[in-house]
């Protein structure tokens, strides 16, 4: 009921190619997240799916139906925006009901669907208020409510949590996850925050410079990144990427090792380094080392005390290193 197929979508603004041939399939009920650095084209891709931008070439199929020339309102989609985009002159109730009203649905049905959505999001007490009288979190819930009321085949989220503060962001994230379970709807979600991507997604699409780098489940991306870009983008702190030549290794250009896959010792180990800085996060301790081959980040679980400028030996966990070739592609062991 809510599958999406994207075939070779290209989009140019003048001479700038923003999307350079995107192919993607989203199954019904999937939660798909587009991540990537700013300017990678993820928002543009979402807008093309929504019909707010025309693709320069390529096809969009929703439920197997080509919707290239279908206006946004008729595509069976609903969208939640980063800036909430609530209608300032309408009450919460009318904000949620406007789409149905435009579609000519009977008042009774609009009322019923608004009621269901508002109770789902605990907005019942605010139905008569204007957006200006709500807090940021409430506004975003109204925006989500407005999407639910439309009962779309496809939910589109454009960085919905970016304008919320940290605590609200976690709550709203949980709420979105709950909604996805409850509604079993297909959701496409754009974010630059990899924590949101890892926690919410069934499938993550990593975009870079208008191309898809890799598609996979969060753990697939974490455990077997196909490119150096994905390796560096997924995981925090970032994966250590070391010039293979400096390590004296051949057959690869770059060696990657995640900070959490390195052990340290004061006495012996593979790589010698001096401590530049230590960050204590409670559950984790992050150590920044300067070694012969450049900086190295190490993440240890629990609390550890190391002196700055002290010498430490680091050893990578065996089988946890990644090798990349000249083009940044992973070399399969």
């Amino acid at each position: 009921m809510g599958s999406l197929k994207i075939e070779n979508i290209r989009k140019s603004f003048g001479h700038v190619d923003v999307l350079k041939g995107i192919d993607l399939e989203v199954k019904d009920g999937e939660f798909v997240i587009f991540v990537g650095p700013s300017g990678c084209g993820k928002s543009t891709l979402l807008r093309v799916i929504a019909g707010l931008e025309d693709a320069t070439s390529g096809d969009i199929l929703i439920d197997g139906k080509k919707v290239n020339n279908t206006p946004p309102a008729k595509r069976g989609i609903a969208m939640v925006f980063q800036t909430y985009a609530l209608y300032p002159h309408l009450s919460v109730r009318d904000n949620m009901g406007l789409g149905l009203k435009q579609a000519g649905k009977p008042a009774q049905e609009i009322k019923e669907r608004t009621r269901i959505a508002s109770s789902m999001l605990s907005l019942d007490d605010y139905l008569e208020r204007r957006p200006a009288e709500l807090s940021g979190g409430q506004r975003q819930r109204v925006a989500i409510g407005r999407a639910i009321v439309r009962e779309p085949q496809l939910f589109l989220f454009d960085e919905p949590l970016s304008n919320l503060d940290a605590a609200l962001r976690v709550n709203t994230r949980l709420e979105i996850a709950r909604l996805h379970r409850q509604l079993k709807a297909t959701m496409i979600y754009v974010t630059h925050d990899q924590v949101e991507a890892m926690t919410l997604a069934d499938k993550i699409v990593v975009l870079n410079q208008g191309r898809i780098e890799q598609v996979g489940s969060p753990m697939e991306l974490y455990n077997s990144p196909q490119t150096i870009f994905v390796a560096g983008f997924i995981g925090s702190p970032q994966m250590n990427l070391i010039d293979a030549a400096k390590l004296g290794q051949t057959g690869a250009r770059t060696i990657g090792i995640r900070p959490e896959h390195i052990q340290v010792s004061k006495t012996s180990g593979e790589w010698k380094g001096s401590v530049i800085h230590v960050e204590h996060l409670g559950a984790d301790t992050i150590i920044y080392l300067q070694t012969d081959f450049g900086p190295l980040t190490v993440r240890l679980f629990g609390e550890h005390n190391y002196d700055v400028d002290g010498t430490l030996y680091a050893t990578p966990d065996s089988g946890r290193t990644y090798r990349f070739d000249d083009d940044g592609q992973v070399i399969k062991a």
Partner: protein
Amino acid sequence: MAKPTASPIRTGFVHLALGAYTLVALFPVFLTVINSFKDRASIFRDPLGLPTPSTFSLVGYETVLKQGDFVLYFQNSFIVTAVSIFFVLLFGAMAAFALSEYRFRGNTMMGLYLALGIMIPIRLGTVAILQGMVAAGLVNTLTALILVYTAQGLPLAVFILTEFMRTVSDDLKNAGRIDGLSEYSIFFRLVLPLVRPAMATVAVFTMIPIWNDLWFPLILAPSDATKTVTLGSQVFIGQFVTNWNAVLAALTLAIVPVLVLYLVFSRQLIRGITSGAVK
């Protein structure tokens, strides 16, 4: 965050300068209003004096109102001004929406072209406009004035409103599109309410020159049935004799509608002028 308090001396100077400017600006208005309530002899004897019981006279107003046609002149001015403002705001806002919202070839050129009218006074084209109006048979109609004033007001309106419409969030317009609003609904129901302060600013800036204009009524619509207030009050100014009572009374009356409109719009107007700077 406490606002840094300016030194009282500096504030004093600012207020002095503003006060002085206000006095200079209001002086002619003040003079017009007080003299309109005096009899003819005391206007000349003591032009700066306030009306006293002995010099107070409403003869100017009586002359103006007895002239009979003045109600018609007022009505003409009202029609011309109101209809012109309506068209300026409607077309100006529509053009501004197109310029700010849609990407198309020549967008910037079109914007500059539309703004050109701010720099080139429309009066330079008076002869051609008159020829056009004669050819179209519109001389001595209010339509002629409305057309000219709409053209005169549009450049500034397009310019100001384009800037304001750029500030309206794209997400909001896109949300409207997804909810199935037509482009016209988005324009009228989402964007226009949000640029209301700018509309008020444009309305006032457009209204005042139209209401005060003497040039085009004199050239395009001088017939008795189409005279505006400004033109109408010229009947009291003769080559040899000028009925100052009547002229001043007519001008005083002509100030009233502008003043009322200004008071109505002033809240919005101040928001419109400052919002770009402060936000």
